[in-house]
């Protein structure tokens, strides 16, 4: 097992990793930018290194400084969290080359899955269901038109290096294709430095269903059930739950089997998430594999009892997977609300000092956050400041518990999305579990 892990991240996920390391008896090194010198993750770690100014490109994403921090502290592994360097194949490769373990998949895994068009190809070749779309990256507008006409409009153009809704365009008819193609390429280029795009059939009101997988280096793969992340605003998830109200045992086995086959096809290892689109006819289609720990991993932990960060560390250390598929029992139901430092109506960021922070407690309530009274929400990074997670014996109980916990959560000094979450939880469609990726748009309009 590792002796000392450097956590190349900040905020709640850095604290999450440090907590797991402490429980495993592993020493930790926090890195931080100058803006985060007083962060809770910095104080929680055994050692800390300032790696640059506030701008993440010069600190958290600055590979030489991050690796130097690992070198001077003698860390033998780096946990990248999510975001920042977590899906950077080059970073993973450099770590491998200098003998520091990257806690995640291999750089080849990351590179392969990072090319979304390529990943679809591999999965489709295995005979698994993939959203109808272009066979690979589109080379030209003509290519795009041909593919779109073959699968039928509407279609969606996506960046091959994409994520977070950037470089995406929905196209309803052939006339609009050319402009959308160029716009998507330009956005992909400016966001990811890579103008590769591909296209897929665009589904109306689909659900976003993802399956958590664990894979060891000996080829064993298990899945830990699905997460329903349909409640999104501009492709940013806001509320996640497991099990999905739309997935029954039979569908779960089926979609789980496909997820496991997909990662086996890619010789993938460590933790990962296979994303699917579930249409109204309960057909599901592979979309992509996320090669990092997900923000919403806690809800899977709540229903399985499995600490995903610890598993991730054990797998990276070369341990064989101790969990067998038949040992995975999903107990009860769990929801997560992402609390962002944003205006709950206009979604404008709301940085500032938290004058009072009082998290909810009691049975079935979990809070993952690096905030506290007096902490500053700095404007340089992601606006998510806390994840509120509840667990109950069934969906009704975990929803009731979430409402209760949202009512208790006090964050003063800045605006947060807590009021929005309270409203979502009161929504009749949400309560019935009738949601799709278009839910929030309609909800906010109505």
């Amino acid at each position, binding site marked *: 097992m590792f002796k000392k892990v450097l956590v190349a991240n900040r905020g709640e996920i850095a604290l999450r990793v440090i907590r797991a390391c402490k429980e495993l008896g592993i020493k930790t090194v926090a890195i931080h930018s100058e803006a985060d010198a*007083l962060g809770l993750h910095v104080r929680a770690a055994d050692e800390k290194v300032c790696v*640059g100014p506030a701008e993440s490109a010069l600190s958290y994403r600055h590979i030489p*400084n991050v690796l130097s921090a690992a*070198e001077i*502290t003698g860390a033998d592994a780096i946990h990248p969290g999510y975001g920042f360097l977590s899906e950077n194949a080059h970073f993973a490769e450099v770590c491998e080359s200098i003998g520091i373990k990257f806690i995640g998949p291999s750089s080849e895994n990351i590179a392969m899955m990072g090319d979304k068009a390529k990943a679809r190809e591999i999965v489709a070749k295995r005979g698994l269901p993939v959203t109808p779309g272009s066979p690979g990256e589109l080379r030209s507008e003509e290519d795009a038109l041909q593919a779109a006409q073959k699968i039928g409009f509407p279609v969606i153009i996506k960046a091959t290096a994409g994520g977070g809704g950037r470089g995406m365009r929905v196209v309803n008819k052939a006339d609009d294709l050319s402009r959308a193609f160029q716009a998507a390429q330009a956005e992909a280029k400016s966001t990811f430095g890579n103008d590769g795009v591909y296209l897929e059939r665009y589904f109306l009101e689909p659900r976003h269903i993802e399956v958590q997988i664990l894979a060891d280096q000996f080829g064993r793969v298990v899945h830990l059930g699905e997460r329903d992340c349909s409640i999104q605003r501009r492709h940013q998830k806001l509320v996640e739950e497991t099990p999905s109200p739309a997935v029954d045992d039979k569908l779960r086995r089926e979609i789980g089997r496909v997820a496991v086959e997909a990662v086996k096809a890619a010789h993938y290892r460590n933790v990962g998430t296979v994303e699917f689109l579930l249409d109204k006819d309960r057909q599901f289609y592979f979309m992509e594999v996320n090669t990092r720990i997900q923000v919403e991993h806690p809800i899977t932990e709540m229903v399985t009892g499995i600490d995903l960060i610890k598993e991730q560390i054990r797998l990276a250390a070369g341990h064989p997977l101790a969990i067998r598929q038949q040992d995975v029992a999903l107990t009860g139901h769990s929801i997560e609300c992402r609390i962002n430092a944003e205006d709950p109506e206009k979604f404008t960021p709301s940085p500032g*000092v938290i004058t009072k922070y009082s998290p909810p407690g009691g049975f079935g309530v979990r809070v993952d956050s690096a905030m506290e009274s*007096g902490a500053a929400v700095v404007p340089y990074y992601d606006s998510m400041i806390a994840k509120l997670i509840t667990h109950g014996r069934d969906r009704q109980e975990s929803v009731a518990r979430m409402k209760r916990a949202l009512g208790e959560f006090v964050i003063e000094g800045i605006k947060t999305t807590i009021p929005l979450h309270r409203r979502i939880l009161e929504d009749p469609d949400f309560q019935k579990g009738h949601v799709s990726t278009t839910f929030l748009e309609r909800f906010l309009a109505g």
Partner: protein
Amino acid sequence: MSPRRSTHSKAKTRRIVLPNTDDAVNPHASLTGGSTKQIQELIDLLRRNNLTELEFEREGIRIRVRHELAARPLAASVPEPLPTPPQQSTYSASSAISVADTSAGFVTVASPIVGTFYRSPSPDADPYVEEGDSVRKGQVLCVVEAMKLMNEIESEVDGRLVRILVENAKSVEYGQALFLIDPKAAS
């Protein structure tokens, strides 16, 4: 590196060291008498500068000024969070961050990268500089090793090297102060 920093202020504060106490308030004037006029001046000072705290002590010549982040009538604008922001930080692998230390008029040379601090180009060689040496702008002061690369750190001012703040072969963080230079003593 100090494991577990124990101090933590409740809010991120920006400390302003007032360059000249006489400009602010002359403490010797009449505070002994407890004149409220003097205090009102301090309050006005606090207001004008949009601070949240202003502390003044005479014996130890101490002035403490606090501006808390959320102190916002100016809440709309984005807060300035950096504890000691390099005022003219030009990041580059080989040029130092220099910060004017107004309290004593010295310039601080800080490490622009994370790595290991070496005073000489190789174990057998002489140190680049010693305390008391005159230094010129562009002169190499030390190397910081990172990723097996030796990064030469140059002085950005002319002056006299007052203090070497880090021991040889110790690791340094980004922004860590390495040298103090007195630019007034430029020969």
